[in-house]
Protein backbone atom coordinates (compact mmCIF):
# COMPACT_ATOMS: atom_id res chain seq x y z
CA UNK A 1 0.00 0.00 0.00
CA UNK A 2 2.68 2.51 0.94
CA UNK A 3 4.30 1.72 -2.39
CA UNK A 4 1.06 2.85 -4.01
CA UNK A 5 1.14 6.10 -2.04
CA UNK A 6 4.69 6.73 -3.12
CA UNK A 7 3.85 6.18 -6.75
CA UNK A 8 0.83 8.46 -6.44
CA UNK A 9 2.97 11.23 -4.97
CA UNK A 10 5.41 10.64 -7.83
CA UNK A 11 2.69 11.56 -10.30
CA UNK A 12 1.82 8.06 -11.53
CA UNK A 13 -1.69 8.26 -13.00
CA UNK A 14 -2.32 4.59 -12.67
CA UNK A 15 -1.44 4.69 -8.98
CA UNK A 16 -3.89 7.56 -8.53
CA UNK A 17 -6.57 5.56 -10.33
CA UNK A 18 -5.88 2.47 -8.22
CA UNK A 19 -5.92 4.50 -5.03
CA UNK A 20 -9.40 5.77 -5.85
CA UNK A 21 -10.49 2.19 -6.64
CA UNK A 22 -9.22 1.01 -3.26
CA UNK A 23 -11.06 3.87 -1.58
CA UNK A 24 -14.28 2.99 -3.39
CA UNK A 25 -13.96 -0.70 -2.62
CA UNK A 26 -12.78 -0.14 0.93
CA UNK A 27 -10.09 -2.58 0.00
CA UNK A 28 -7.99 -3.96 2.85
CA UNK A 29 -5.55 -1.30 3.98
CA UNK A 30 -7.36 1.60 2.33
CA UNK A 31 -7.54 3.42 5.64
CA UNK A 32 -3.79 3.56 6.07
CA UNK A 33 -3.58 4.77 2.50
CA UNK A 34 -6.04 7.62 3.11
CA UNK A 35 -4.32 8.47 6.39
CA UNK A 36 -1.11 8.82 4.41
CA UNK A 37 -2.77 11.24 1.98
CA UNK A 38 -3.69 13.83 4.61
CA UNK A 39 -0.30 15.37 5.08
CA UNK A 40 0.10 15.87 1.34
CA UNK A 41 -3.36 17.31 0.75
CA UNK A 42 -4.88 20.69 1.49
CA UNK A 43 -3.76 22.89 -1.38
CA UNK A 44 -6.41 22.16 -4.00
CA UNK A 45 -9.54 24.23 -4.42
CA UNK A 46 -12.62 22.03 -4.40
CA UNK A 47 -15.70 23.01 -6.38
CA UNK A 48 -19.00 21.13 -6.13
CA UNK A 49 -21.50 21.17 -9.00
CA UNK A 50 -25.02 19.90 -8.61
CA UNK A 51 -28.40 20.32 -10.27
CA UNK A 52 -31.17 18.23 -11.73
CA UNK A 53 -30.50 15.72 -14.52
CA UNK A 54 -30.18 17.42 -17.89
CA UNK A 55 -29.28 20.82 -16.48
CA UNK A 56 -25.97 20.65 -18.31
CA UNK A 57 -23.59 19.89 -15.46
CA UNK A 58 -21.16 17.69 -17.40
CA UNK A 59 -21.01 20.10 -20.31
CA UNK A 60 -20.27 23.01 -18.00
CA UNK A 61 -17.66 20.97 -16.12
CA UNK A 62 -16.00 20.15 -19.42
CA UNK A 63 -15.73 23.85 -20.30
CA UNK A 64 -14.52 24.71 -16.81
CA UNK A 65 -11.75 22.15 -17.08
CA UNK A 66 -10.80 23.48 -20.52
CA UNK A 67 -10.58 27.04 -19.20
CA UNK A 68 -8.52 26.06 -16.16
CA UNK A 69 -6.17 24.10 -18.40
CA UNK A 70 -5.78 27.12 -20.69
CA UNK A 71 -4.70 29.03 -17.59
CA UNK A 72 -2.09 26.39 -16.87
CA UNK A 73 -3.82 24.72 -13.94
CA UNK A 74 -4.33 20.99 -13.52
CA UNK A 75 -7.77 19.60 -12.91
CA UNK A 76 -9.29 16.58 -11.21
CA UNK A 77 -12.94 15.70 -11.74
CA UNK A 78 -15.12 13.24 -9.91
CA UNK A 79 -18.53 12.61 -11.45
CA UNK A 80 -21.02 10.64 -9.40
CA UNK A 81 -23.90 8.80 -11.01
CA UNK A 82 -26.69 6.87 -9.33
CA UNK A 83 -26.65 3.08 -9.16
CA UNK A 84 -29.52 0.66 -9.46
CA UNK A 85 -31.06 -0.14 -6.08
CA UNK A 86 -31.85 -3.64 -7.38
CA UNK A 87 -28.68 -4.88 -9.02
CA UNK A 88 -26.14 -2.31 -7.82
CA UNK A 89 -25.19 -1.82 -11.45
CA UNK A 90 -24.70 1.58 -13.00
CA UNK A 91 -24.05 3.28 -16.28
CA UNK A 92 -21.61 6.11 -15.68
CA UNK A 93 -22.26 8.41 -18.58
CA UNK A 94 -20.66 11.76 -17.81
CA UNK A 95 -17.33 11.00 -19.36
CA UNK A 96 -18.92 11.19 -22.80
CA UNK A 97 -19.24 14.96 -22.49
CA UNK A 98 -15.60 15.58 -21.63
CA UNK A 99 -14.84 16.22 -25.29
CA UNK A 100 -12.61 19.26 -24.78
CA UNK A 101 -10.12 17.44 -22.64
CA UNK A 102 -9.61 14.11 -24.31
CA UNK A 103 -6.01 13.11 -24.60
CA UNK A 104 -5.01 15.50 -21.81
CA UNK A 105 -3.91 13.42 -18.84
CA UNK A 106 -3.68 16.57 -16.72
CA UNK A 107 -7.43 16.47 -16.59
CA UNK A 108 -8.05 13.39 -14.47
CA UNK A 109 -11.67 12.39 -14.83
CA UNK A 110 -13.11 9.66 -12.65
CA UNK A 111 -16.65 8.30 -12.67
CA UNK A 112 -18.00 7.01 -9.39
CA UNK A 113 -21.18 5.12 -8.71
CA UNK A 114 -23.28 6.06 -5.71
CA UNK A 115 -23.34 2.33 -4.81
CA UNK A 116 -26.52 2.84 -2.86
CA UNK A 117 -24.94 3.18 0.56
CA UNK A 118 -26.06 6.08 2.71
CA UNK A 119 -23.18 8.19 3.89
CA UNK A 120 -20.64 5.85 2.37
CA UNK A 121 -20.54 7.68 -0.93
CA UNK A 122 -19.85 11.02 0.60
CA UNK A 123 -16.91 9.74 2.60
CA UNK A 124 -15.55 7.84 -0.39
CA UNK A 125 -15.87 11.04 -2.41
CA UNK A 126 -14.10 13.08 0.25
CA UNK A 127 -11.31 10.50 0.30
CA UNK A 128 -11.04 10.47 -3.48
CA UNK A 129 -10.82 14.27 -3.43
CA UNK A 130 -7.98 13.90 -0.96
CA UNK A 131 -6.19 11.56 -3.36
CA UNK A 132 -6.48 14.06 -6.23
CA UNK A 133 -5.36 16.84 -3.89
CA UNK A 134 -2.30 14.91 -2.72
CA UNK A 135 -1.53 14.05 -6.34
CA UNK A 136 -1.20 17.79 -6.91
CA UNK A 137 -4.31 18.84 -8.78
CA UNK A 138 -4.94 22.60 -8.54
CA UNK A 139 -8.70 22.46 -8.98
CA UNK A 140 -10.96 19.57 -8.12
CA UNK A 141 -14.52 19.49 -9.38
CA UNK A 142 -17.10 17.15 -7.86
CA UNK A 143 -20.19 16.71 -9.98
CA UNK A 144 -23.36 14.98 -8.86
CA UNK A 145 -27.07 14.89 -9.62
CA UNK A 146 -28.89 16.86 -6.97
CA UNK A 147 -31.66 14.50 -6.07
CA UNK A 148 -31.49 14.02 -2.34
CA UNK A 149 -29.67 14.19 0.93
CA UNK A 150 -26.85 11.98 -0.25
CA UNK A 151 -25.90 14.42 -2.96
CA UNK A 152 -26.04 17.33 -0.56
CA UNK A 153 -23.59 15.49 1.67
CA UNK A 154 -21.30 15.01 -1.30
CA UNK A 155 -21.18 18.62 -2.39
CA UNK A 156 -20.58 19.66 1.20
CA UNK A 157 -17.08 18.34 0.72
CA UNK A 158 -16.52 21.34 -1.59
CA UNK A 159 -15.25 24.82 -0.76
CA UNK A 160 -17.70 26.35 -3.19
CA UNK A 161 -21.03 24.75 -4.03
CA UNK A 162 -22.55 25.63 -7.39
CA UNK A 163 -26.13 24.79 -8.27
CA UNK A 164 -27.18 24.62 -11.90
CA UNK A 165 -30.72 25.57 -12.74
CA UNK A 166 -32.25 25.41 -16.18
CA UNK A 167 -35.11 27.57 -17.43
CA UNK A 168 -38.52 26.09 -17.03
CA UNK A 169 -37.55 23.79 -14.18
CA UNK A 170 -40.75 24.50 -12.31
CA UNK A 171 -42.99 27.18 -10.89
CA UNK A 172 -41.88 29.49 -8.11
CA UNK A 173 -42.98 27.09 -5.40
CA UNK A 174 -40.10 24.84 -6.47
CA UNK A 175 -37.82 27.65 -5.41
CA UNK A 176 -39.35 27.69 -1.96
CA UNK A 177 -38.82 24.01 -1.32
CA UNK A 178 -35.99 23.06 0.94
CA UNK A 179 -32.97 21.34 -0.49
CA UNK A 180 -30.26 21.97 -2.98
CA UNK A 181 -31.07 25.62 -3.59
CA UNK A 182 -30.24 26.39 0.01
CA UNK A 183 -26.72 25.07 -0.23
CA UNK A 184 -25.67 27.14 -3.25
CA UNK A 185 -22.75 29.55 -3.03
CA UNK A 186 -23.12 30.33 -6.72
CA UNK A 187 -26.13 29.85 -8.98
CA UNK A 188 -25.78 29.15 -12.67
CA UNK A 189 -28.80 29.55 -14.89
CA UNK A 190 -27.65 27.38 -17.74
CA UNK A 191 -29.20 27.30 -21.20
CA UNK A 192 -29.71 31.03 -20.76
CA UNK A 193 -30.56 31.29 -24.46
CA UNK A 194 -33.83 29.43 -23.88
CA UNK A 195 -37.19 31.09 -23.32
CA UNK A 196 -37.91 31.63 -19.68
CA UNK A 197 -34.30 32.15 -18.61
CA UNK A 198 -35.05 35.70 -17.47
CA UNK A 199 -37.93 34.48 -15.40
CA UNK A 200 -35.79 31.81 -13.76
CA UNK A 201 -33.16 34.42 -12.88
CA UNK A 202 -35.92 36.65 -11.49
CA UNK A 203 -37.34 33.84 -9.37
CA UNK A 204 -33.94 32.95 -7.98
CA UNK A 205 -33.31 36.59 -7.14
CA UNK A 206 -36.65 36.84 -5.34
CA UNK A 207 -35.84 33.75 -3.38
CA UNK A 208 -32.49 35.22 -2.36
CA UNK A 209 -34.19 38.51 -1.47
CA UNK A 210 -36.55 36.71 0.86
CA UNK A 211 -33.63 34.93 2.42
CA UNK A 212 -31.77 38.23 2.76
CA UNK A 213 -34.70 39.94 4.47
CA UNK A 214 -35.04 37.08 6.87
CA UNK A 215 -31.52 37.87 8.04
CA UNK A 216 -30.82 41.35 9.32
CA UNK A 217 -30.27 44.57 7.41
CA UNK A 218 -27.82 43.50 4.75
CA UNK A 219 -29.92 44.78 1.92
CA UNK A 220 -27.36 47.33 0.80
CA UNK A 221 -24.71 44.72 0.50
CA UNK A 222 -27.10 42.43 -1.25
CA UNK A 223 -27.98 45.08 -3.80
CA UNK A 224 -24.37 45.50 -4.82
CA UNK A 225 -23.84 41.79 -5.05
CA UNK A 226 -27.05 41.45 -6.99
CA UNK A 227 -25.71 43.86 -9.52
CA UNK A 228 -22.40 42.10 -9.69
CA UNK A 229 -24.21 38.87 -10.23
CA UNK A 230 -25.80 39.96 -13.46
CA UNK A 231 -22.96 38.70 -15.55
CA UNK A 232 -24.22 38.63 -19.08
CA UNK A 233 -23.19 35.80 -21.36
CA UNK A 234 -19.84 36.53 -22.92
CA UNK A 235 -19.84 38.01 -26.37
CA UNK A 236 -22.03 40.95 -25.39
CA UNK A 237 -19.02 43.07 -24.66
CA UNK A 238 -19.74 42.29 -21.03
CA UNK A 239 -16.16 41.48 -20.16
CA UNK A 240 -15.08 44.95 -19.10
CA UNK A 241 -18.20 45.38 -17.11
CA UNK A 242 -17.82 42.04 -15.35
CA UNK A 243 -14.16 42.69 -14.61
CA UNK A 244 -14.96 46.01 -13.02
CA UNK A 245 -17.61 44.70 -10.71
CA UNK A 246 -15.42 41.74 -9.82
CA UNK A 247 -12.78 44.10 -8.61
CA UNK A 248 -15.32 45.97 -6.54
CA UNK A 249 -16.63 42.79 -4.98
CA UNK A 250 -13.14 41.64 -4.15
CA UNK A 251 -12.25 44.94 -2.51
CA UNK A 252 -15.42 44.72 -0.53
CA UNK A 253 -14.46 41.27 0.68
CA UNK A 254 -10.96 42.39 1.55
CA UNK A 255 -12.25 45.33 3.57
CA UNK A 256 -14.14 42.95 5.80
CA UNK A 257 -11.69 40.76 7.67
CA UNK A 258 -11.92 41.08 11.40
CA UNK A 259 -15.47 42.26 11.07
CA UNK A 260 -16.57 38.88 12.28
CA UNK A 261 -20.25 38.30 12.83
CA UNK A 262 -20.99 41.58 11.08
CA UNK A 263 -23.79 41.38 8.58
CA UNK A 264 -21.45 42.45 5.78
CA UNK A 265 -19.59 39.19 6.11
CA UNK A 266 -22.58 37.28 4.79
CA UNK A 267 -22.21 35.94 1.29
CA UNK A 268 -25.09 36.37 -1.10
CA UNK A 269 -24.90 33.84 -3.92
CA UNK A 270 -24.46 35.49 -7.30
CA UNK A 271 -26.54 34.30 -10.23
CA UNK A 272 -24.55 33.68 -13.39
CA UNK A 273 -26.16 33.09 -16.76
CA UNK A 274 -24.45 30.64 -19.05
CA UNK A 275 -24.81 28.65 -22.23
CA UNK A 276 -22.40 25.85 -21.45
CA UNK A 277 -22.60 24.20 -24.87
CA UNK A 278 -21.04 27.34 -26.40
CA UNK A 279 -18.82 28.14 -23.45
CA UNK A 280 -20.74 31.38 -22.84
CA UNK A 281 -20.68 32.67 -19.30
CA UNK A 282 -17.93 30.25 -18.24
CA UNK A 283 -15.40 33.01 -17.49
CA UNK A 284 -17.96 34.95 -15.45
CA UNK A 285 -18.81 31.73 -13.62
CA UNK A 286 -15.18 31.01 -12.78
CA UNK A 287 -14.82 34.63 -11.58
CA UNK A 288 -17.79 34.14 -9.27
CA UNK A 289 -16.13 31.01 -7.86
CA UNK A 290 -12.91 32.95 -7.29
CA UNK A 291 -14.89 35.74 -5.59
CA UNK A 292 -16.41 33.20 -3.26
CA UNK A 293 -13.04 31.73 -2.50
CA UNK A 294 -11.66 35.18 -1.72
CA UNK A 295 -14.66 35.76 0.53
CA UNK A 296 -13.98 32.48 2.38
CA UNK A 297 -10.37 33.48 2.97
CA UNK A 298 -11.16 37.06 3.95
CA UNK A 299 -13.85 36.18 6.47
CA UNK A 300 -12.11 33.20 8.01
CA UNK A 301 -14.93 30.98 6.80
CA UNK A 302 -12.44 28.77 4.97
CA UNK A 303 -10.95 27.62 8.27
CA UNK A 304 -14.38 27.17 9.80
CA UNK A 305 -15.48 25.08 6.84
CA UNK A 306 -12.41 22.90 7.10
CA UNK A 307 -13.16 22.26 10.78
CA UNK A 308 -16.76 21.44 9.96
CA UNK A 309 -15.59 19.00 7.32
CA UNK A 310 -13.20 17.24 9.65
CA UNK A 311 -15.96 16.97 12.23
CA UNK A 312 -18.27 15.46 9.66
CA UNK A 313 -15.59 13.01 8.51
CA UNK A 314 -15.00 11.85 12.06
CA UNK A 315 -18.71 11.43 12.70
CA UNK A 316 -19.26 9.52 9.46
CA UNK A 317 -16.34 7.19 10.11
CA UNK A 318 -17.55 6.49 13.63
CA UNK A 319 -21.08 5.85 12.39
CA UNK A 320 -19.78 3.41 9.79
CA UNK A 321 -17.52 1.64 12.26
CA UNK A 322 -20.21 1.23 14.88
CA UNK A 323 -22.57 -0.02 12.21
CA UNK A 324 -20.00 -2.66 11.24
CA UNK A 325 -19.48 -3.58 14.87
CA UNK A 326 -23.21 -4.00 15.37
CA UNK A 327 -23.55 -6.09 12.22
CA UNK A 328 -20.94 -8.38 13.74
CA UNK A 329 -22.93 -8.51 16.97
CA UNK A 330 -26.17 -9.31 15.14
CA UNK A 331 -24.41 -12.19 13.37
CA UNK A 332 -23.09 -13.41 16.72
CA UNK A 333 -26.66 -13.49 17.98
CA UNK A 334 -27.75 -15.77 15.17
CA UNK A 335 -28.38 -13.25 12.42
CA UNK A 336 -31.01 -10.65 11.63
CA UNK A 337 -33.55 -13.32 10.61
CA UNK A 338 -33.62 -14.76 14.12
CA UNK A 339 -34.21 -11.32 15.55
CA UNK A 340 -37.00 -10.69 13.05
CA UNK A 341 -38.56 -14.04 14.01
CA UNK A 342 -38.86 -12.74 17.54
CA UNK A 343 -40.73 -9.66 16.36
CA UNK A 344 -43.00 -11.67 14.06
CA UNK A 345 -43.83 -14.07 16.89
CA UNK A 346 -44.80 -11.11 19.04
CA UNK A 347 -42.15 -11.89 21.67
CA UNK A 348 -40.37 -8.59 21.32
CA UNK A 349 -40.19 -5.50 19.08
CA UNK A 350 -37.48 -3.66 17.15
CA UNK A 351 -36.98 -1.13 19.94
CA UNK A 352 -36.51 -3.89 22.50
CA UNK A 353 -33.97 -5.61 20.28
CA UNK A 354 -32.05 -2.39 19.68
CA UNK A 355 -31.84 -1.87 23.45
CA UNK A 356 -30.74 -5.47 23.98
CA UNK A 357 -27.96 -5.22 21.48
CA UNK A 358 -26.75 -1.77 22.43
CA UNK A 359 -27.01 -1.77 26.22
CA UNK A 360 -23.85 -3.86 26.78
CA UNK A 361 -21.92 -1.62 24.37
CA UNK A 362 -23.06 1.52 26.17
CA UNK A 363 -22.33 -0.01 29.59
CA UNK A 364 -18.87 -1.09 28.51
CA UNK A 365 -18.01 2.33 27.12
CA UNK A 366 -19.23 4.14 30.25
CA UNK A 367 -17.25 1.80 32.47
CA UNK A 368 -14.05 2.42 30.53
CA UNK A 369 -14.61 6.17 30.58
CA UNK A 370 -15.04 6.15 34.35
CA UNK A 371 -11.95 4.01 34.83
CA UNK A 372 -10.12 6.68 32.91
Amino acid at each position, binding site marked *: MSDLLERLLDGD*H*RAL*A*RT*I*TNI*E*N*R*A*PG*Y*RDLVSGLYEHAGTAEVIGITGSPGAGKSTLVDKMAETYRDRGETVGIIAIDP*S*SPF*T*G*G*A*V*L*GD*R*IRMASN*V*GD*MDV*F*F*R*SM*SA*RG*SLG*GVSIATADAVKALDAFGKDRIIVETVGAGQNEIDIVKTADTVCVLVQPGSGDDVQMLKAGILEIADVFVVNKADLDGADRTVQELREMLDLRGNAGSGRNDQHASHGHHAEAEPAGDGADGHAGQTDGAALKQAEAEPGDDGGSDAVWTPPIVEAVATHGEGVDAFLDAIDDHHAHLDATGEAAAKARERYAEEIRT*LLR*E*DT*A*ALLTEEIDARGGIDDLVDGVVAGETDPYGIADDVLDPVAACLRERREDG
Partner: protein
Amino acid sequence: MSAGQTQQPIRCLVAKVGLDGHDRGAHVIARAFRDAGFEVVYSGLHRSPDEVVQAAVQEDVDVLGISILSGAHNTLVPKILEGLDEYDALDDTLVLVGGIVPDKDKDELKEQGVSAIFGPGASMEDTIEFVRENAPER
Protein backbone atom coordinates in the same frame (compact mmCIF):
# COMPACT_ATOMS: atom_id res chain seq x y z
CA MET B 1 -10.45 -3.04 11.56
CA SER B 2 -11.90 -2.60 8.13
CA ALA B 3 -15.27 -1.01 8.45
CA GLY B 4 -18.33 -1.82 6.42
CA GLN B 5 -18.60 -4.57 3.91
CA THR B 6 -16.18 -4.73 1.09
CA GLN B 7 -18.08 -3.79 -2.00
CA GLN B 8 -16.47 -4.62 -5.25
CA PRO B 9 -18.59 -4.48 -8.35
CA ILE B 10 -16.89 -5.27 -11.65
CA ARG B 11 -16.00 -2.06 -13.51
CA CYS B 12 -16.16 -2.04 -17.30
CA LEU B 13 -15.40 0.45 -20.01
CA VAL B 14 -17.46 -0.06 -23.13
CA ALA B 15 -15.58 1.71 -25.89
CA LYS B 16 -16.35 2.67 -29.46
CA VAL B 17 -13.21 3.35 -31.37
CA GLY B 18 -12.58 4.74 -34.83
CA LEU B 19 -14.95 5.91 -37.49
CA ASP B 20 -17.86 3.52 -37.28
CA GLY B 21 -20.95 5.27 -36.07
CA HIS B 22 -23.13 2.41 -34.92
CA ASP B 23 -23.40 2.11 -31.18
CA ARG B 24 -26.65 0.30 -30.66
CA GLY B 25 -24.73 -2.86 -29.79
CA ALA B 26 -22.58 -0.92 -27.33
CA HIS B 27 -25.72 0.48 -25.70
CA VAL B 28 -27.26 -2.98 -25.44
CA ILE B 29 -24.15 -4.43 -23.85
CA ALA B 30 -23.81 -1.44 -21.49
CA ARG B 31 -27.35 -1.96 -20.33
CA ALA B 32 -26.96 -5.71 -19.95
CA PHE B 33 -23.77 -5.22 -17.93
CA ARG B 34 -25.53 -2.67 -15.75
CA ASP B 35 -28.36 -5.13 -15.12
CA ALA B 36 -25.77 -7.76 -14.23
CA GLY B 37 -24.61 -5.42 -11.45
CA PHE B 38 -21.50 -4.09 -13.18
CA GLU B 39 -20.44 -0.47 -13.19
CA VAL B 40 -20.25 0.56 -16.81
CA VAL B 41 -18.49 3.58 -18.25
CA TYR B 42 -19.46 4.26 -21.84
CA SER B 43 -16.94 6.13 -23.95
CA GLY B 44 -19.21 7.56 -26.61
CA LEU B 45 -18.65 7.34 -30.35
CA HIS B 46 -15.55 8.08 -32.46
CA ARG B 47 -12.82 7.68 -29.85
CA SER B 48 -9.19 7.41 -30.72
CA PRO B 49 -7.09 4.60 -29.22
CA ASP B 50 -5.36 7.17 -26.97
CA GLU B 51 -8.66 8.37 -25.59
CA VAL B 52 -9.76 4.82 -24.86
CA VAL B 53 -6.49 4.15 -23.04
CA GLN B 54 -6.83 7.37 -21.04
CA ALA B 55 -10.36 6.43 -20.01
CA ALA B 56 -9.38 2.85 -19.11
CA VAL B 57 -6.45 4.02 -16.97
CA GLN B 58 -8.26 6.85 -15.18
CA GLU B 59 -11.37 4.79 -14.52
CA ASP B 60 -9.21 1.82 -13.46
CA VAL B 61 -11.58 -0.65 -15.09
CA ASP B 62 -11.36 -4.41 -14.70
CA VAL B 63 -12.78 -4.99 -18.14
CA LEU B 64 -12.36 -3.12 -21.41
CA GLY B 65 -14.89 -4.04 -24.08
CA ILE B 66 -14.08 -2.65 -27.50
CA SER B 67 -16.94 -2.59 -29.95
CA ILE B 68 -15.83 -2.38 -33.53
CA LEU B 69 -17.71 -2.97 -36.75
CA SER B 70 -15.64 -1.04 -39.25
CA GLY B 71 -13.04 -3.67 -40.05
CA ALA B 72 -10.25 -1.51 -38.65
CA HIS B 73 -9.65 -3.79 -35.66
CA ASN B 74 -6.22 -4.84 -36.89
CA THR B 75 -4.95 -1.26 -36.67
CA LEU B 76 -6.96 0.13 -33.77
CA VAL B 77 -6.98 -2.70 -31.24
CA PRO B 78 -3.18 -3.19 -31.16
CA LYS B 79 -2.77 0.55 -30.52
CA ILE B 80 -5.04 0.31 -27.52
CA LEU B 81 -3.18 -2.75 -26.21
CA GLU B 82 0.15 -0.96 -26.58
CA GLY B 83 -1.22 2.08 -24.78
CA LEU B 84 -2.44 -0.04 -21.88
CA ASP B 85 0.93 -1.70 -21.70
CA GLU B 86 2.65 1.69 -21.51
CA TYR B 87 0.66 2.44 -18.38
CA ASP B 88 1.36 -1.03 -17.02
CA ALA B 89 -2.34 -1.73 -17.24
CA LEU B 90 -2.48 -4.52 -19.79
CA ASP B 91 -1.82 -7.39 -17.40
CA ASP B 92 -4.74 -6.75 -15.12
CA THR B 93 -7.31 -5.56 -17.62
CA LEU B 94 -9.56 -8.10 -19.30
CA VAL B 95 -9.79 -6.95 -22.92
CA LEU B 96 -12.75 -8.08 -24.99
CA VAL B 97 -13.64 -7.28 -28.57
CA GLY B 98 -17.20 -7.29 -29.85
CA GLY B 99 -18.47 -6.82 -33.36
CA ILE B 100 -17.40 -8.02 -36.75
CA VAL B 101 -14.03 -9.77 -36.74
CA PRO B 102 -13.23 -12.33 -39.46
CA ASP B 103 -12.03 -15.69 -38.17
CA LYS B 104 -8.62 -15.25 -39.76
CA ASP B 105 -7.93 -12.18 -37.60
CA LYS B 106 -9.06 -13.64 -34.29
CA ASP B 107 -5.98 -15.62 -33.38
CA GLU B 108 -3.68 -12.71 -33.98
CA LEU B 109 -5.73 -10.37 -31.77
CA LYS B 110 -5.75 -13.00 -29.03
CA GLU B 111 -2.02 -13.40 -29.27
CA GLN B 112 -1.66 -9.67 -28.75
CA GLY B 113 -3.65 -9.73 -25.53
CA VAL B 114 -7.36 -9.82 -26.33
CA SER B 115 -9.03 -12.42 -24.10
CA ALA B 116 -12.17 -13.08 -26.08
CA ILE B 117 -13.99 -11.97 -29.20
CA PHE B 118 -17.75 -11.92 -29.35
CA GLY B 119 -19.27 -11.79 -32.80
CA PRO B 120 -22.83 -11.66 -34.06
CA GLY B 121 -25.04 -14.17 -32.30
CA ALA B 122 -22.98 -14.29 -29.11
CA SER B 123 -25.37 -14.59 -26.20
CA MET B 124 -25.50 -11.92 -23.56
CA GLU B 125 -25.53 -14.54 -20.79
CA ASP B 126 -22.34 -16.11 -22.11
CA THR B 127 -20.64 -12.74 -22.33
CA ILE B 128 -21.59 -11.80 -18.78
CA GLU B 129 -20.59 -15.21 -17.51
CA PHE B 130 -17.22 -14.88 -19.24
CA VAL B 131 -16.65 -11.51 -17.60
CA ARG B 132 -17.61 -12.83 -14.15
CA GLU B 133 -15.23 -15.76 -14.50
CA ASN B 134 -12.32 -13.90 -15.99
CA ALA B 135 -12.39 -10.42 -14.50
CA PRO B 136 -9.00 -9.93 -12.84
CA GLU B 137 -8.68 -10.27 -9.09
CA ARG B 138 -7.66 -6.99 -7.59
